[in-house]
């Protein structure tokens, strides 16, 4: 009985000594999809300070309270694309990049208006398809192409944060 008591007490003590698993910062250890603009590489889940510095002054800025947590979800609008961030403690990290027109393209050369064939030529056929949209996954990131007929109408890079 004494052993059982000691074991239970030890377990209780351990309960107070564990480390957090759910609050850990997102890590980008695997290869990711990356977007490039103004000579700056934008990687999903990356801390944003040097990225913002590289991209230069945004055209528009919007911040939204991250519903119940400290920090803000921020949207930076640049010529041809939007960069959206999420808070992670004192830092902001890249949540998504949305390409808005054909003045910018993905690193692999696909832009809005291109054909499905060009998307497949650049990224292959290892995508998941939902409602005609192609989603490619690499590391902790996805790259989604939405089509209007055969033409790309939207391109979005998104961080996988879970």
């Amino acid at each position, binding site marked *: 009985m004494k052993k059982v008591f000691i074991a239970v007490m030890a377990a209780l003590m351990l309960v*107070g000594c564990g480390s957090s698993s759910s609050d850990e910062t997102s890590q980008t250890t695997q290869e990711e999809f990356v977007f490039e603009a103004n000579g700056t590489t934008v990687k999903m889940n990356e801390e944003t300070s040097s990225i913002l510095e590289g991209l230069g002054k945004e055209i528009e*800025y919007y911040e939204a309270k991250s519903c119940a947590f400290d920090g803000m979800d921020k949207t930076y609008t640049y010529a041809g694309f939007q960069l959206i961030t999420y808070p992670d403690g004192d830092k902001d990290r890249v949540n998504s990049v949305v390409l808005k027109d054909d003045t910018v393209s993905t690193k692999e050369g696909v832009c809005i208006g291109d054909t499905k064939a060009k998307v497949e030529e650049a990224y292959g056929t290892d995508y998941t398809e939902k409602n005609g949209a192609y989603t490619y996954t690499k590391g902790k990131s996805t790259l989604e192409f939405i089509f209007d007929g055969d033409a790309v109408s939207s391109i979005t890079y998104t961080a996988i944060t879970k």
Partner: protein
Amino acid sequence: MKKKVIIITISICLILSTFFLLQSLLMPKYVSEVPEGSLIAEYYNEDVYDHNVVFVGDCEVYENFSPITLWEEYGIKSYIRGSAQQLIWQSYYLMEETIQYEKPDVIVFNVLSMKYDVPQNEAYNRLNIDGMKWSSSKWNAIQASMTEEESVIDYIFPLLRYHQRWSELTSEDFEYMFGGKPQLSHNGFLMRVDELGVDTIPEAQPLADYQFSDNCYEYLDKMVKLCQDNDIKLVLIKAPSLYPAWYDEWDEQMVQYAKENHVDYINFLNYIDEIGLDFQHDTYDAGLHLNLSGAEKLSRYFGNYLVEKYDIEDSRKDSDSASRWAKKVKFYDDMKEDQYRELEEYGYLKSYGAKEK
């Protein structure tokens, strides 16, 4: 033998007491930080459960409607069972639980959460579920809400989830260890008097699929049935928050659903001028949520609708109700005065979760 039994009993009591004490200490208190986490539990502090109207939903209900204005202007007794990013199944189970306490004339559900098909985030689940008292509704809410990484045992024994808070403990964790937390909301409404007008709203991203999921429709069907079975009118709303985007394709689905199921659906985004909302002054975070001024305007507009459409009785002449609500009005007025004082003194709402500008 007798001595052995006594030792075992004392040991068990000691273990249970230690567990209880640790859990009481380490559970987040949600007072100065993330007050949204206190909203669900505050419902149980009500003296009488006789609300005419109960709201369920996400931040678009608990930030945008003022039950005190509904009372002062129309004598409507209301409560907001809202919480951050409340998902539709959580709203349903809160609705189910609420009906165990009272039978309101009207239940109002904000439909923004139709966009979420699957459980999203453990932290938000906690804000929605931890505050619920144990019941079959809570159990079912947990089952419906858990992400793949979660375990039901962590909800039964929250200490297992919060044990790592040792390093984050503040004086509030000790102060409110055994209860006694201050009331933070006004029948579920979180007040903010500060202003941050709208300069720009990001263009909405195109979606691959605008169709709401079968899972969400199933819960909406359950809400309709629950209300029908209990002779409660269900009103679907979309609050007039400008961000995040509410797509026309989503709106059309709600209009169609309401028509087919004979429930009302009001998209307040279509009535911004009639409500009198000025998004330079009636929001505290650039269009996501209304501030006090905006919430009072919206409540006046909606209160008039509720009275005209559902003939909600004016309870201001009932002395018991008037007495209870007079205390709520005083708390509301005092907090309003205190928030304006802080705004004047510090330039931001120092004690109410705002950040220094």
